[in-house]
C-alpha cells in the first residue's frame, strides 16, 4: 500500500500542473472579484442575492470542471507515454513496482486526485470571491453572499459529479490509457482517429451508425443518465435564469440539488455498468501493454 502513496506523490512531483492550473484559475477569479464591476442591483433583495450566489458558485464550479476535463484528458493520455518517449521507463522498471501498481496509481490520480484538487480549488476560489464581493457590495452585511444551503448543495453536486463521471467515463479513461501505453508517438491523434475511422468505415461499408451512436451516447449521455430533468422542461440549472434557478419559490429551491441528482437512475441504468465492464477490460489491456513495453 505504501508503494501506492509514493507512486501518487511521484505523479504530483512530475505533473505540477495538477495544482498550478487550478491555483492560477483561482487567483484569476479572485482578482476578477476584486477589480471587476459589481452591479449593486444584483443584491437589492435577499432573493436576488441568493440566486446570484448560486449562479456564481455554479459558474465557478463549471469553469473549474471544464478545465479539469481538458487537463485529465491530457494527463491520462500522457501518463504512460512520456516515460517511454524519454526512456526513463527503464529506470521505473528497475524498481520493485508492478506494472499493475503503476497503471492503477495513474488511474487513481486521473480519476480521484486531480478532481479533488480542482474541487478544493473551486471551493476556495468561490468562497473567497463570495467574501470579496460581499465586502465590496458594501450596502450589505458581510455575510450576504454566504448561503450555507446553496453552498452545501454545490458541494454535494461536486462529489456526486466526481464519482459519477469517473464511473461513466471509465471506458474513455481505459481507452486513453491503452493509447498512452501503446502509441509510439502522436498519442493525441491515436486517441481520436481510430474511433473516427471505425465510425466512417461502418457508415461507408455497412451503412449503419451503431458505433457512432454508441460513442455518442457515451460522450454526450452523461447528464441525462446522472441527472433528473425537472418536469417543467428546464434541463439543467445553467439553462435557467438566476431567479428561476435559485429563487426560493421556484423549482431550484434549497432542496433542488437533491432532486436533480439522480443516483438511483444512474446506478440502475445498464449502460453505466456495461461501460464499467468495457473500461475495466481496457485498463487490463493497458496493464498488459505496459508489461510488454519494457523496451520502449
Amino acid at each position, binding site marked *: 500500500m505504501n508503494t501506492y502513496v509514493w507512486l501518487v*506523490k511521484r505523479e504530483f512531483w512530475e505533473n505540477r500542473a495538477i495544482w498550478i492550473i487550478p491555483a492560477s484559475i483561482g487567483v484569476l477569479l479572485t482578482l476578477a472579484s476584486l477589480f471587476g464591476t459589481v452591479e449593486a442591483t444584483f443584491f437589492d433583495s435577499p432573493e436576488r442575492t441568493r440566486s446570484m450566489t448560486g449562479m456564481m458558485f455554479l459558474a465557478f464550479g463549471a469553469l473549474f470542471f471544464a478545465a479539469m476535463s481538458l487537463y485529465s484528458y491530457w494527463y491520462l493520455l500522457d501518463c504512460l507515454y512520456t516515460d517511454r518517449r524519454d526512456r526513463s521507463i527503464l529506470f521505473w522498471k528497475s*524498481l*520493485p513496482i508492478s506494472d499493475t501498481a503503476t497503471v492503477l496509481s495513474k488511474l487513481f490520480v486521473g480519476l480521484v486526485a486531480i478532481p479533488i484538487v480542482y474541487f478544493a480549488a473551486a471551493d476556495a476560489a468561490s468562497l473567497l470571491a463570495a467574501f470579496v464581493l460581499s465586502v465590496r457590495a458594501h450596502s450589505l452585511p458581510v455575510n450576504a453572499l454566504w448561503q450555507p444551503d446553496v453552498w452545501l448543495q454545490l458541494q454535494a453536486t461536486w462529489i456526486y459529479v466526481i464519482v459519477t463521471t469517473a464511473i461513466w467515463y471509465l471506458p474513455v479513461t481505459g481507452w486513453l490509457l491503452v493509447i498512452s501505453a501503446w502509441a509510439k508517438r502522436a498519442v493525441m491523434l491515436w486517441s481520436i482517429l481510430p474511433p473516427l475511422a471505425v465510425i466512417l468505415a461502418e457508415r461507408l461499408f455497412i451503412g449503419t451508425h451503431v458505433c457512432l451512436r454508441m460513442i455518442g451516447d457515451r460522450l454526450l449521455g452523461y447528464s441525462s443518465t446522472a441527472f433528473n430533468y425537472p418536469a417543467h422542461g428546464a434541463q439543467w440549472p445553467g439553462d435557467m435564469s438566476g431567479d428561476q434557478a435559485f429563487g426560493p419559490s421556484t423549482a431550484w429551491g434549497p432542496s433542488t440539488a437533491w432532486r436533480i441528482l439522480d443516483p438511483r437512475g444512474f446506478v440502475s441504468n445498464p449502460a453505466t455498468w456495461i461501460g464499467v465492464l468495457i473500461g475495466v477490460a481496457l485498463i487490463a489491456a493497458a496493464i498488459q501493454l505496459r508489461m510488454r513495453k519494457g*523496451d520502449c
Partner: protein
Amino acid sequence: MSPLIQARDLSKKFGSQVALDHVSFAVQPGRIVGLIGPNGAGKTTALRAVLGLTTYDGALEVLGREPFRERAALMSEASFIADVAVLPSWLSVDHAIEFVGGVHPRFRADRARALLAKTDIAGHRRIRELSKGMKTMVHLALTMAIDARLLVLDEPTLGLDILARRGFYDALVNDYMDDTRTILITTHQVEEVENLLTDVLFIDKGRIVLDCSMEDIAARYAAIAVTEDKLGAARAEQPFHERPMLGKRILYFESPNFERLAAFGDVSTPSVADLFVAKLSRGAPA
C-alpha cells in the same frame, strides 16, 4: 550452488528477425560476466529477457523467478542500469533518493547520500540540470545503495567521456564489488571491463559463440606473433584466425599443443577484445 541465472533454449523473434536463437547459458553467484557481441547480436534482448522487460520463448530463471511474470518481485533483489541518462529529467536528486527509499526494501538512503557526497552534485538539482556524467553517477549511486544479489549493466557508460567512464568503474570496483555480488554487463568498451570480468559470454547473430571463464581463456586460447619464415609451419598447427601486425602475423589457436607452439615465438593469452574479433571473424581468416 545453483546458478543465479539459468537460460535454456531462450528464443526471441521480432517479426521474422531472430534476436535470440535457442540460447542457453548460466551465471553463477559471485561472478562478473561480460556479455559481449556486435550491434544487433542479441545482447540487449538477452538482458531485457533476464530483467523481465520482454516476453520470450524457452525457459529462463533468474534468482529462482520467472522474470517476465515476476518482474516486480525480481527487482527487489536485482537491479539494473539499462542505459545512460534514463533517469527522468524532472526528478530532483533528493526526490529520487526519497522515492527509491520509499518503494525499495533493500535500498539504503544514507549509503546513496554518502556516495553522492563524494561528488559535487547538490541534492536539490533536477536531473535535467546535470551533465551526462553526473546523471550516470547519480544513477550509479542509487543502484549501488541497493543491496542487490544481481546487478545488470547494459552499456552503462555509452557516450561518456573517458573521465566519467573511469569514475564509473572505479566507484563500481571500490565501493560496490565484493564476493556476494553478481554482475552481468554488456559494453562495447571491452578493454575497460576486461580486468573486472571473471567470465565472458560472446554472442553473435542470436547465438552464444563462446562461454568461458577468464582462466579458461588462458588455458584454451593462445596467440603468437609469427615471422614470415615460420608462418608455414605455424599454420600447420591450424590457427582459427590470423591478422597482420607490423610485418609479422598474429595467429590465434584454440586448444593447441602449447609446447609445439612455443617453437614459433612468444605464446601469449589473447585479450578479450582480440579473442572477440578472432572468434567472430572465424571462417574468413585474413
